[in-house]
């Protein structure tokens, strides 16, 4: 009798555990990323969108934004802005804790923001996104007041950016900046589990997560139990893995494959046009042939950007003309009048600057060749296309396909003539990062003014624009900024960034984070 009872109990136990699995509906999502050389997963330090691809799923921000940039309460339930625009008072959620059990509170907000502006941290992106930050005042446990030095027009957008995610202060104390980047602790829907360098990063669901922003379909913990980011640099391997069902979601799928999936319907696709800096090239104004503004202008004129973009992207991306993409607020349409494709004009400018065509098709001046060293980290095919066009007017462009470590080395050493960049941002305020003279890189200080352009007038405009009082003033200032950059021909926009994602058609809820680059995996579920 007792045995029968035990068996009955056992059966009920098995069934109940089975039903538990059923309701949890655990999913294992494998995500294929394209860059194996991740360095840190610390939102305060990174400025790599590849790193942010993971960070966005492990952290939350004070204010949350959907893929269109509409804002919702995040870790803060509400916020007040003082009439002078200097103080932002956040009422914080009181039911949130970090993955390590630390309670989320105003002190955590203060610790995060204070550490971002600490030069010791070596912040690459967050420090600029935080703008004219002065201090954070802890009013009580769940009220924090962020104070700026000057009016900061982009503050609300800034607080939605991944870089300003709130990090666990206890983990920070325990691990230090270096260690934290290797084992990050946030409040997000997924927790860091494991990182195999150059291979994969594994995240697991945060079982306590109950503070999803309201634009999400789900609530409570995510239906994705395990999230594995396999780092597959080679595109065709990535697509093959996706088609074989080895991975469920792949990013940066080549346009030709997107076209095939779109017409066959075997895989679902989603394309995001990204706001921020387009895929563009900085021309180094401090060394080499691009010190001469006419040579820079000639280089601009040599490229047929519209044809190049349609050739390479088969209609999945548009050519870009200005320092910010046309989808970014305060975009100035005057950008499009600058530097149209004009090889004859380019040749005339070069002739005028003293660069005469040599017998080998490369121009020369005083025995020196018109050579451009172009380390290419992103989109080698685009770099080669640029090279091909520039070659026609007499530039000898040496492309070297580099990894990030090599590029960093060249940046510190000022050893390049041009470099490509792309940047996800929701606000024209991003322009201060690549154009303010304080952001010229120095050995040991990684910054993004790769044109190394220093101009007091531009600096002033950028600072003024940051603290503009009204939208009209802001638009006008950013117009002047864009005009200045275009006049100087230091930043050559090529095409709008696109994020092309293909995924297993059984899944739904695959969504972009604000800016349309990173993917938020919280809502992913089986149909």
């Amino acid at each position, binding site marked *: 009798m007792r045995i029968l009872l035990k068996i009955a109990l056992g059966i009920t136990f098995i069934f109940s555990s089975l039903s538990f699995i059923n309701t949890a509906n655990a999913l294992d999502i494998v995500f294929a990323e394209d860059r194996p050389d991740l360095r840190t997963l610390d939102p305060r330090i990174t400025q790599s969108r590849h790193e942010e691809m993971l960070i966005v799923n492990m952290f939350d921000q004070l204010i949350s934004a959907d893929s269109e940039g509409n804002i919702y309460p995040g870790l803060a339930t509400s916020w007040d802005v003082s009439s002078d625009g200097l103080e932002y008072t956040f009422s914080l959620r009181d039911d949130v804790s970090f993955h390590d059990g630390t309670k989320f509170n105003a002190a955590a907000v203060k610790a995060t923001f204070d550490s971002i502006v600490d030069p010791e941290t070596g912040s690459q992106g967050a420090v600029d996104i935080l703008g004219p930050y002065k201090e954070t005042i802890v009013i009580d446990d769940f009220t924090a007041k962020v104070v700026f030095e000057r009016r900061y027009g982009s503050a609300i957008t800034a607080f939605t950016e991944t870089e300003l995610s709130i990090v666990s202060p206890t983990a920070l104390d325990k691990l230090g900046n270096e260690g934290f980047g290797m084992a990050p602790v946030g409040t997000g829907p997924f927790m860091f589990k494991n990182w195999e360098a150059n291979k994969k990063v594994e995240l697991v669901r945060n079982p306590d997560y109950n503070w999803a922003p309201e634009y999400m379909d789900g609530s409570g913990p995510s239906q994705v139990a395990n999230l594995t980011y396999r780092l597959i640099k080679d595109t065709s391997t990535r697509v093959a893995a996706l088609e074989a069902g080895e991975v469920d979601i792949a990013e940066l799928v080549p346009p030709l*494959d997107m076209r095939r999936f779109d017409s066959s319907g075997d895989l679902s696709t989603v394309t995001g046009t990204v706001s921020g800096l387009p895929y563009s090239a900085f021309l180094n104004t401090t060394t080499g042939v691009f010190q001469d503004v006419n040579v820079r202008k000639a280089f601009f004129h040599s490229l047929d950007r519209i044809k190049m973009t349609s050739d390479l992207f088969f209609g999945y991306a548009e050519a870009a003309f200005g320092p910010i993409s046309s989808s970014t607020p305060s975009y100035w349409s005057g950008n499009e009048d600058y530097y149209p494709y004009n090889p004859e004009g380019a040749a005339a400018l070069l002739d005028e600057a003293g660069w005469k065509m040599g017998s080998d098709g490369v121009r020369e001046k005083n025995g020196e060749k018109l050579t451009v060293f172009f380390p290419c980290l992103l989109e080698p095919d685009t770099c*080669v296309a640029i090279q*091909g066009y520039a070659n026609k007017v007499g530039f000898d462009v040496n492309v070297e396909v580099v990894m990030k470590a090599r590029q960093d080395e060249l940046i510190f050493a000022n050893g390049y003539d041009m470099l490509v960049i792309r940047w996800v941002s929701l606000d024209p305020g991003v322009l201060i990062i690549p154009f303010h003279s304080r952001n010229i890189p120095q050995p040991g200080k990684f910054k993004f003014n790769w044109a190394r352009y220093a101009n007091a007038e531009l600096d002033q405009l950028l600072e003024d624009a940051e603290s503009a009082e009204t939208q009209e003033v802001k638009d006008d200032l950013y117009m002047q900024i864009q005009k200045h950059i275009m006049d100087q021909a230091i930043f050559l926009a090529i095409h709008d960034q696109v994020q092309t994602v293909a995924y297993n058609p059984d899944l739904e809820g695959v969504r972009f984070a604000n800016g349309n680059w990173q993917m938020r995996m919280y809502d992913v579920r089986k149909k």
Partner: protein
Amino acid sequence: MKNFSIILKRFLLNKGSAFGGIFLLIIIIGAIFAPLIAPYNWNEVDTGPRLAPPSWDFLFGTDIHGRDVFSRIVYGARYSLSVGVISVLFGIIAGSIFGITIAYIGGRVDIIGSRIIDVMFGFPSFLLSLLVVAIIGVGLWNVVFAVGLASIPHFARIIRSAALQVKEQPYIEACVNMGFGKIRIMFNHILPNIFPIIIVIATMDLGGAIISIASLSFLGLGAQPPEPEWGAMLSSGREYMRYAPWTMIYPGLFLFLTVMSVNLLGDRLSIALDARQSVDKGKV
């Protein structure tokens, strides 16, 4: 002269080496007269439509930038052949000097030198060249240097043992007794007598060197765009393999045929230069 005709006969009597020789000759002529043979500029973008399949206008099709694949392969022969030859030359010269020197001086120098070779042998030569590239940086000529450097221990070991044999010959003893200097003995008397061996191992190694350089270029460490080196062409065609297989097939095919030809030639050369074989036996 009689020797030469024997060697030539031995070659042509064999189908493999005849094929290898003829193919290689075509490639070499193609490389030298590339400007006359290539219908288009290898670096000119938009010579035709992008990713166009092979046709009479574009014999091997075009790549993503609308460049003619045939023209690029013809010019690529210049890179692939010359870098192979130069890297082997570098390896063989350094290996000969090292091998002959330690063999002739002998004693402790030989022991230490041989151990150095042994240690170098501990690393696979491809890994060694990767290491060298990591230190001196990417670029075609750096890769040529790296592959050459990595082949030195292999050459040095074979040449050392050949030189050891020659060293014991009476005519070398005679040289010593006549008071010739060491350098003179090493390079005027030992070197010519092991020259056939050097030629054979150099040829045998050429195929390997071409493959190694192409592999490093494929990995993005060697030739940089737009250089039409075959390995680099393979690598850049990879992304469009499904839609434009010709961007990979033709560079791959030419790489394969060239290396095979070199190897067939090398095999035969080792038989042909073997003085113990008669003409008739050359059919082996």
